[in-house]
């Protein structure tokens, strides 16, 4: 019998925060996560730029469910469950494409790109109860678009997306506002699996503590390219922030430049002026302080439960889904301002390739690290993982506050407490969990 109260020990006054490792290994936990987290929360599907033109579609699995999204001839992006309303076959069988009409190959029912059922062969074979108008493609109960990021929820009663995003909204704005004419997803995605529990990638993505030891070879590489090694040493000392609803951010000083809009010798003299102009525009539009946040500071943002936005030299959008307790599927994309001239996206891609990609100099080591944790759990004799770092002080990015924020909300959902207050840097909110 699963005892959730034995999953987390959260005692701020004593500086204790531990996670029971069965949270990463138990099939019952994963089943509960599916019901209580993935079926209840807002989940990221796509960026609207992935379907630029009317009729463009792509398919995507979200929480194990086959979905597809299509830009209708009216210009609106809709998300549909990828199943024929007749007998269930997948409607969209290509990863991407373009269609005015999507036809099910099984019995040739066809739907326009607004989802309406427009063609039923030999329709006279159905009686008077057959209501063609009600047989259009079905959407998830809730679909909302926040500034180009499209989310769905399978929970009809979920709060509005903006309310759900809480403090993460401000950080999404910091990303979107970098572009004058909107953001776009660059063609090509990284799809890979990790043999580890999905929550270990949440932890890894928000964890500033592992960066220096795990990614030594990456920092050796960039130091070799001319980045000052001192910059790496102090980059992760900024205060940590939690953003409510389980969202959290790990902010750090950028150790290399940013195409938005902090020039580095690595970008080449020829791009210096362009980058200075972007910065000047951002200062004019948003003021010095906000422009500073947008251009000088890098951040890893978790939109609970499983969307990561790494706003760094490149902007990585990463989503990951549990398959079994010890296996997840990951997909990652690159986001860039539409107006950026060709050489700058190249610099973004360069960074992605050297750090965040599965062929990069850092992400493979993160994969190795969390697979190693998962493998270590099989030893069983050590029941708890330790996440108390920084509880006794004002937490910094190298501490584990961000991880605790995720876990507290995770516990809130799993235990039925619902939304818990994860916003206080040190003490207040955890009293509810201490019981």
């Amino acid at each position, binding site marked *: 019998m699963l005892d959730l109260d034995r999953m987390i020990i959260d005692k701020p006054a004593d500086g204790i925060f531990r996670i029971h490792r069965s949270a990463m290994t138990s099939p019952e936990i994963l089943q509960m996560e599916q019901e209580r987290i993935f079926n209840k929360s807002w989940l990221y599907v796509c960026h609207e730029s992935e379907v630029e033109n009317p009729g463009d579609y792509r398919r995507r699995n979200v929480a194990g469910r086959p979905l597809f999204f299509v830009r209708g001839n009216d210009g609106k992006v809709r998300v549909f469950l990828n199943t024929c309303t007749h007998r269930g076959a997948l409607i969209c069988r290509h*990863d991407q494409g373009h269609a005015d009409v999507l036809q099910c190959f099984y019995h040739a029912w066809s739907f326009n790109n607004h989802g309406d059922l427009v063609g039923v062969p030999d329709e006279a074979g159905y009686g008077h109860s057959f209501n063609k108008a009600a047989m259009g493609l079905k959407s998830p109960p809730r679909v909302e678009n926040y500034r180009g990021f499209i989310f769905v929820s399978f929970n009809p009663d979920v709060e509005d997306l903006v309310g759900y995003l809480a403090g993460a909204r401000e950080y999404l704005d910091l990303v979107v506002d970098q572009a004058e004419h909107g953001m776009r997803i*660059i*063609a*090509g*995605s*990284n*799809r*890979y*699996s*990790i*043999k580890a529990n999905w929550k270990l990638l949440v932890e890894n993505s928000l964890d500033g503590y592992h960066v220096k030891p*795990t990614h*030594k*070879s990456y920092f*050796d*590489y960039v130091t*070799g390219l001319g980045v000052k090694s001192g910059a790496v040493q102090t980059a992760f000392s900024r205060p940590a922030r939690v953003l409510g609803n389980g969202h959290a951010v790990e902010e750090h000083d950028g150790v290399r430049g940013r195409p938005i809009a902090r020039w580095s010798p690595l970008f080449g003299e020829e791009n210096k002026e362009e980058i200075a102009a972007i910065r000047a525009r951002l200062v004019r539009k948003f003021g010095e302080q906000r422009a500073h946040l947008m251009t000088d500071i890098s951040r890893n943002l978790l939109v609970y439960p499983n969307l990561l936005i790494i706003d760094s030299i490149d902007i990585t959008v990463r989503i990951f889904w549990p398959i079994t307790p010890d296996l997840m*599927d990951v997909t990652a*994309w*690159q986001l860039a301002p539409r107006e950026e001239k*060709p050489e700058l*996206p*190249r610099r973004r*891609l*360069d960074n*992605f*390739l*050297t750090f965040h*990609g*599965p*062929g990069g*100099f850092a*992400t*493979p*080591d993160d*994969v*190795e*690290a969390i*697979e190693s944790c998962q*493998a270590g759990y099989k030893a069983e004799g050590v029941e708890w993982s330790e996440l108390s770092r920084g509880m006794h002080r004002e937490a910094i990015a190298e501490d584990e506050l961000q991880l605790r924020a995720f876990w507290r909300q995770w516990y809130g959902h799993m235990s039925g407490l619902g939304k818990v207050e994860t916003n206080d840097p040190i003490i207040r909110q955890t009293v509810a969990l201490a019981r």
Partner: protein
Amino acid sequence: MPQAREQNDRTVRELVEDFLYQEAALLDQWRLDEWLALFTSDGRYFVPTTDLPNGDPKTDLVFIDDDMVRLRARVERLKSRHGHREYPSSRTRRFITNIIIKVTEDGMVVTSSFLIYRFRLGESSPYVGWYEHKLKQADGQLKIHHRKAVLDMEALSEHGAVSIIL
């Protein structure tokens, strides 16, 4: 390529096959510095993503797009104990077949099929795909000017990474 025929009276095909097999052996034996020496000074190594096999590294997201600076760094990382995904190193075995050679003005373009098994920590995962080698004569030797490895898998679903040199 006329010079090729003159070398030891071997045919171009024999020369190319030998080159590819020797290259595979260097990689399987982790003799990575010797492998690096097979490239011209402006050589490139490139792996597109699984969903965009025709991806252009200038504009699209790819897995790997190394010039010689980054390729050298990749090799250094693989040789160090800080490239954790390959420390300890995996065992690999490369099978190269279906070689098609097209002789061009300044060298040749060779395509081939590969099957690379990688064994590590009790697991095995094959990388399946095809190579495009652009080879040319430099310093009296056949050298790699451009090397592309295109994967046929739909995702890196067994592998988690492209941590070895394909």
